[in-house]
């Protein structure tokens, strides 16, 4: 029985191996035709046109832009929510608000995409930016931020709840007010958990697909103007995935090259997130 269970455990290792093999084997074939230097430095991405350019920068900048906007929403709101839930909220309010925030995390991303395109974008166009196009990085990024908010908030709250009562009570005994305890005692004590939460949230935002595929636009554009439409790495992959891509074509291989770049980026942030917690966590006992 033990061996059978071990075999189950091996599946997860095999999955990782399979992902690496699939990504690398096709990427190697891609980079035989297009040099890595071209991939990383060219400023245009037009693999589906007659005149082909293979610069990943426009896709990378699109991904970076939507991720930055999302984090601009998710980090402040998520942290403040966590502080409210762990330091301020009366038990009854906590019992209602926490599950409601968790519902936000359970909504399928395609629904958020719909919301960004048909609700947030028209709203922004009507009230703030009449010259903005229907498809833009801003509404996709904002909605993505709301989607990630519960992740930042619940991971940070876990870290704050792990800070022992004695520390808070010590601060109160010295005459500190509640916000001083929250900001100067609990926040620094929970910092490793909070930083880790933010890093994991960045990884999530980088790989988020359906919101940006629906609402951010379809034009790879090297820009940091949030009012313009951009194409992210993931949105490009969806665009190709929807078409008929002949196996073995260069088009098919661009998928894996972009996928490898995306995988490397998310892996970096995830590993940092895991490492920060294991390296810097304060054990209170």
């Amino acid at each position: 029985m033990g061996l059978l269970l071990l075999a189950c455990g091996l599946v997860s290792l095999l999955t990782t191996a399979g992902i690496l093999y699939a990504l690398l084997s096709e990427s190697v074939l891609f980079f035989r035709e297009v040099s890595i230097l071209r991939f990383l430095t060219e400023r245009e991405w037009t693999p589906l046109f007659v005149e082909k350019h293979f610069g990943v920068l426009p896709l990378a900048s699109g991904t970076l832009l939507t991720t930055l906007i999302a984090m601009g929403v998710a980090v402040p709101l998520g942290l403040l929510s966590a502080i409210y839930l762990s330091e301020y909220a009366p038990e009854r309010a906590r019992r209602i608000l926490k599950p409601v925030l968790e519902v936000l995390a359970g909504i399928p991303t395609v629904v958020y995409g719909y919301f960004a395109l048909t609700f947030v974008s028209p709203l922004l166009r009507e009230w703030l930016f009449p010259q903005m196009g229907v498809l833009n990085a801003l509404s996709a990024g904002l909605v993505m931020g709301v989607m990630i908010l519960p992740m930042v908030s619940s991971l940070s709250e876990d870290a704050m709840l792990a800070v022992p009562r004695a520390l808070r009570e010590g601060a109160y005994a010295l005459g500190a007010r509640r916000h001083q305890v929250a900001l100067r005692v609990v926040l620094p004590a929970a910092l490793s958990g909070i930083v880790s939460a933010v890093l994991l949230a960045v990884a999530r935002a980088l790989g988020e697909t359906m919101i940006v595929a629906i609402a951010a636009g379809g034009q790879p554009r090297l820009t940091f103007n949030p009012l313009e439409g951009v194409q992210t790495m993931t949105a490009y992959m969806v665009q190709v995935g929807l078409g008929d891509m002949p196996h073995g074509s260069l088009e098919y291989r661009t998928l894996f090259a972009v996928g490898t770049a995306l995988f490397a980026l998310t892996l970096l942030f995830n590993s940092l997130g895991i490492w920060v917690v294991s390296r810097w966590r304060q054990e209170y006992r």
Partner: protein
Amino acid sequence: MATGIPLAVPLRRRRSLVSLAVGAFFHGLALSAVVVGVMVLGALLVDVLRKGIPHLDWQFLTSYPSRFPQQAGIKSALAGTAWLMALTAVVTVPLGIGTAIWLEEYAPRNWFTRLVRLNIATLAGVPGIVYGLLGLALFVRWMGLGRGVLAGALTVGLLVLPTVIVASQEALRAVPDSLRQGAYALGATRWQMVAGVVLPSALPGILTGVVLALSRAIGEAAPLIMIGALTFVAFLPKTPLDPFTVLPIQIFNWVSRPQPAFHLIAASAIIVLLVVLLLMNSIALWLRNRYQRKTEW
């Protein structure tokens, strides 16, 4: 000592008033952050209901998609979602629970076990669309499963596997050691102890994790688009190798069209998807309450 005589000099009192104001402001700020989240959720639900309810009827549930929004329905998407969920459960439940049992009850404390744990934590952070590439290369091409439900279920099954593993691990860890020792004391083997004592006690937690994972699975669109699930399907899959579509892909397809009439039926389909999710989570909650009452220690 509690005389209530203010010890503070006026200057200090002014500072404490400022700090009182800052405190109140910060309290309000923190509260409003939660309120923003709740309000967005409210706006999303109201918007979807307002736009989607008018078209939501029996005909919508039992019609195939169509070029004409008035006649379009989600019959094939519902069938595909049901197929995908069933097959995903078959793939991921035994694997996930097996891995969790191995990690919690069997695995020795060595570098290999640490590697498996780290690997699971890493896999949990890999974007869904990358799993789609794995499915495309491995299941669709290499194993030759084609663009059928089975290839989709295997892909999504691997995607949600870490969720099942981690939830099951937590449920197993919550079972007190005294139960294990009691079973051993009665002469049980390790497997008898796990199957007869630990698993039944951990079952509510494990079930909750499984439902959580499956509700993530039925909301996924990106990995299925990568393996080539179709966006327009006017038939029902009959075998696990048949082409299919699912609700999120159908919604994506309708949202991406320029005509507003399709956006409205996308909202109708979203309502159906959210109701399915709500049902699944209610079942999980019900199961947990039902079983938790029996076992108390």
